[in-house]
Each structure stands twice: as structure tokens, then as C-alpha cells.
């Protein structure tokens, strides 16, 4: 791996070593993925708004008796409306965000608010057009990344934890360090830590593929082609619910990911995902391995 040494000083200032962390393939697929997931989320919520109820099983519709277990709606409240989010038998007033929110300066009944859907106004046909375009884009980009990860040994080199990283003692230490927002420095920062690796693995190999498969399970055409998908997920409506839950997990991952990028050296992280070069900082007494 190419290493570039810069800023060698004779004082106690830490020495900075730039090394090439992210290949072109990883950087390009990463940013295309950001683009795809952003549009997929926003158009997905537009689609969800057309029928903001989630069910379990093969069927489910808001015909009474309504069997949904999650439902976002608006109810009349005097001369105004209020947003109500229901999870099982628990009802929450979510006016302003879920169920009822401001659209064109007026409190309107809509599950997710205008600022997070594409288009901002209710338009299922357009939401679907954006969703399926970026779904194809996402799948092709994801396949390129998976192929590169396997053939270019990126998974084995960077993503799969080493045996040493998986010992209980090591994991406990890393959890403790993370909780105190203490991050590895010097040589230890050259590789992802085990919590990072396990999280990335869960996203790459479980959550994102689950997103695609549950999406396909909602398509009547793909249902005829891959009927086993219905058995795997327990029905089209279960798949729709799992699609929603996986999307929520991705949103949580992205929030944590961005917070970690911010607190562990934002410029260094951003530079490495743009130019490829990541700086390792060494105390003078440390050995620099090339």
C-alpha cells in the first residue's frame, strides 16, 4: 500500500502519514449509493403516504375491520386536524410531523411531511417513477460494489473482522472506547475497528439485500417469477412492512455513520472518501510502519 509521509517536524507535534485507504471503486460506489438511497428514501415515503398502514401476512387493506398494526393518519380535532400515529393499541399525537403537517402554509393530512417526500406534494405516480429508476441504479451500483469487493479482495482485506478483533476482551474494550468517543490513533487507525466492520457487514450483506428482496416481493410480476419470496417473507404485506423497517434501520445507520464521521475527524474522513488518502497521526515515539 502506498504511503506518503508529510509534515516531518522535530518538535513533539504528531507526525502525519497519508495512506491510500479507499480505492476508486469504493469511493465512486459510495457516493452513488448516497445519491440512490437519498432519492429512494424520499420517493419511498411518497409511496408510503398513498397508504400509510402496515400489515403482516399475505393481504391487508384499510377495509374494516382494519387489521393494520402500524397506521399514520389524521383525525378531526375541533376546526383543525391532528396527526395520530398508531402502533398496535398505542396511539400517539404526532401533529406537525406524522399524520398532519404543514403543506403550502396549511396543516394538511399527510403521513410523512412535505419536506421529506419527493415530490413535496402528494403524487404517487411520480414518486413511483423516481423510486424505480433509483432502485435500478442502486441495484446495478450495488452489484458493481459486490463484484469489486469479492474480486478486488476488498471484503477480505477491509470488511471482514480478523480473529483477534473478535475476542470478547477486544470487543468489550472497543465498546467501552466507542462509548467514550475515544478512537484509535496511529497504526491502529489503519484498519476499521471490529464494531465498524460488523456494522458495515450487516448493512452490506443483510440490510441492503433485504431492501431489494422485500421490494421485489411487493411486485406482482416478480412474485410470479420468484414465488419463493412470498414464503421467505410470509406474504406481500409482511414484505412491505419489512421493507419499511429495513429502510428505518438504514436511516438509523446513516445518522450514526454521519455522527461518527463528524466526531472522529471530519476532514480526514471526508478527504479519504473523496481523494482516497487518509491521515494516520503518530506520536513521535511510535514506530511508523510503511
Amino acid at each position: 500500500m502506498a504511503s506518503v509521509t508529510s509534515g516531518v517536524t522535530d518538535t513533539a507535534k504528531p507526525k502525519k502519514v497519508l495512506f491510500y485507504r479507499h480505492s476508486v471503486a469504493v469511493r465512486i460506489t459510495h457516493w452513488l449509493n448516497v445519491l440512490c438511497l437519498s432519492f429512494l428514501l424520499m420517493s419511498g415515503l411518497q409511496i408510503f403516504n398513498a397508504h400509510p398502514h402496515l400489515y403482516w401476512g399475505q393481504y391487508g387493506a384499510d377495509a374494516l375491520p382494519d387489521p393494520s398494526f402500524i397506521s399514520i393518519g389524521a383525525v378531526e380535532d375541533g376546526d383543525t386536524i391532528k396527526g395520530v400515529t398508531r402502533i398496535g393499541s398505542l396511539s400517539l399525537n404526532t401533529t406537525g410531523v406524522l399524520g398532519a403537517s404543514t403543506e403550502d402554509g396549511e396543516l394538511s393530512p399527510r403521513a410523512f411531511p412535505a419536506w421529506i417526500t419527493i415530490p413535496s406534494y402528494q403524487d404517487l405516480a411520480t414518486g413511483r417513477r423516481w423510486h424505480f429508476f433509483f432502485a435500478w441504479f442502486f441495484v446495478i451500483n450495488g452489484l458493481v460494489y459486490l463484484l469489486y469487493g469479492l474480486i478486488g479482495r476488498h471484503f477480505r482485506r477491509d470488511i471482514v473482522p480478523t480473529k483477534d478483533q473478535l475476542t470478547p476482551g477486544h470487543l468489550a474494550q472497543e465498546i467501552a472506547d466507542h462509548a467514550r468517543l475515544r478512537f484509535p490513533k496511529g497504526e491502529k487507525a489503519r484498519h476499521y475497528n471490529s464494531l465498524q466492520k460488523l456494522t458495515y457487514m450487516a448493512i452490506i450483506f443483510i440490510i441492503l439485500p433485504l431492501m431489494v428482496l422485500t421490494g421485489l416481493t411487493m411486485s406482482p410480476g416478480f412474485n410470479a417469477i420468484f414465488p419463493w419470496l412470498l414464503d421467505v417473507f410470509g406474504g406481500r404485506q409482511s414484505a412491505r412492512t419489512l421493507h419499511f423497517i429495513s429502510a428505518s434501520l438504514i436511516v438509523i445507520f446513516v445518522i450514526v455513520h454521519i455522527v461518527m464521521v463528524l466526531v472522529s475527524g471530519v476532514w480526514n474522513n471526508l478527504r479519504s472518501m473523496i481523494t482516497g488518502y487518509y491521515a494516520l497521526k503518530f506520536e513521535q515515539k511510535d514506530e511508523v510502519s510503511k
Partner: protein
Amino acid sequence: MSFDLTRRRFLIGSSVAATGLLTGCDAMVQSTTVNDILQKAESLTMGAQRLLMSRQTLAREFSEADLSPVFKANGTSQPDSEDYARMTENNFADWKLAVNGMVKTPLNLSLADLKAMPSRTQITRHDCVEGWSAIGKWTGVPLGLVLEKAGLAPGARYAVFHCADDLEPSLDGSGRYYESIDLVDAWHPQTILAYGMNGKDLEVAHGAPMRLRVERQLGYKHAKYVMGIELVESFKNLAGGKGGFWEDRGYEWYAGI
């Protein structure tokens, strides 16, 4: 500077930024160039599905135990015309299904004629584009048998279904419901003209006297209140030119996803 002022400035600043972003997004959404590019994904979806499915690949069929307790009625649930009202009064005894356009023998079939033909019963899931599903049991005559009886003229590529309901009332009839499918779906074994539902005659709310079932596509393709079937080479000159009521309003013609 007090906290409140800073906070207010932040809120004003972020709402201005959000409004700018929203306007930007909506401008992009409304651009025809952007739409033309995004629409390419529809042919990709249709191409992929047609590549992976054979002409005989069936949609999942369920058992009686899987039937939805209540089958939601959507779209029109009571066509609002005198002609239709008259037909319901005498139980559709005067109703005739017209099969015309690019056919060798135009037909006019009564409900009794259709019921005398071989029938198929299937328990399938109906998927609305909005996201909900309901499972129902459908009985009807395979569309292929009707097309065989009429005989297709060379060049016929699509079957267009003309319906009795005005989903969007209009003076010029542009709000009249219609749909179209190509011959791959028209000849599919599960594509039936259903006159029975859940063991009874099809109810008005679900499209009496007859609705289309095209099981590998979304609900809006399953035209209700079918009055006539027209075989055409192209649907460019019909209504909005996109091949269906919802298609004319922005939805995909191929609704397999």
C-alpha cells in the same frame, strides 16, 4: 445574543434553506427531460420481467382459507350513468360484451353466452398501486377463448377494455375508464373475464357484470364494468394516448411492479 434569537435565526435560516431545496426538487420533478430519463426504468422493468417469466408463468394461487374477510372496493364503486342503472335493474340481461376492432369476426356476447363457455376459477391476490392487497376468488372465461372465437386480424397488438364508469366526470368523456394489455398478457392462462367473485355473481362495487383479471400486474390494470374489447395495433389515438385511464395520469402502462 440571547438563545431565543439564535434559535429563531437558525429556524428561519433552515426553513428558508428547506424551502429552497423543496422548490429545487419539485422543479426537477416537473422537468420533462428528467421525466423522460426516469421513465426509461419502466422498459427496464418490463424487459427484465418478460425475460425472466415465460408466457405460462402463473401468479400465486391461494386457498379458500387465505381469502380476505373484506375485499376493499376501490375506484368507482357505482357507475353513475342511466344506461348502467338500467342494466343493473334487469340483472344485466341486456348487457352485451362487444368484441371488435382488428378481429376477423366481431362479437356481441351476452352474459349467458360467456357463462356457457369453459370457465376458470382462481384465488389470487389483488395488489393496489397504493400498497394494499386483498385476496379474492374469481370465476370467469379465459380472455384467450374469447379472442380465439373472434379471431385476431393481422397486426393486432393490444386488447383495449372500454368500461362503463367515468372515474373523472367530464363532458368530453376523457374521464371514462379504459385499460389495455398486450397479447402476452391477453393469452395468459390466468387472464380471465371474471363474472363471479367469492362464489357469487360479481357485485356492482367490484365491477359487475364483468371485470378483467390480469394477475401479474397491479390493480388498476384489472378494468371493472367492461363493456367492450377492442383489438388495436396502437393505443396512441385513444383518449390520452397512454393506453389507460391511470396511464394518462402518469402511471406506468406496464404495472408488473
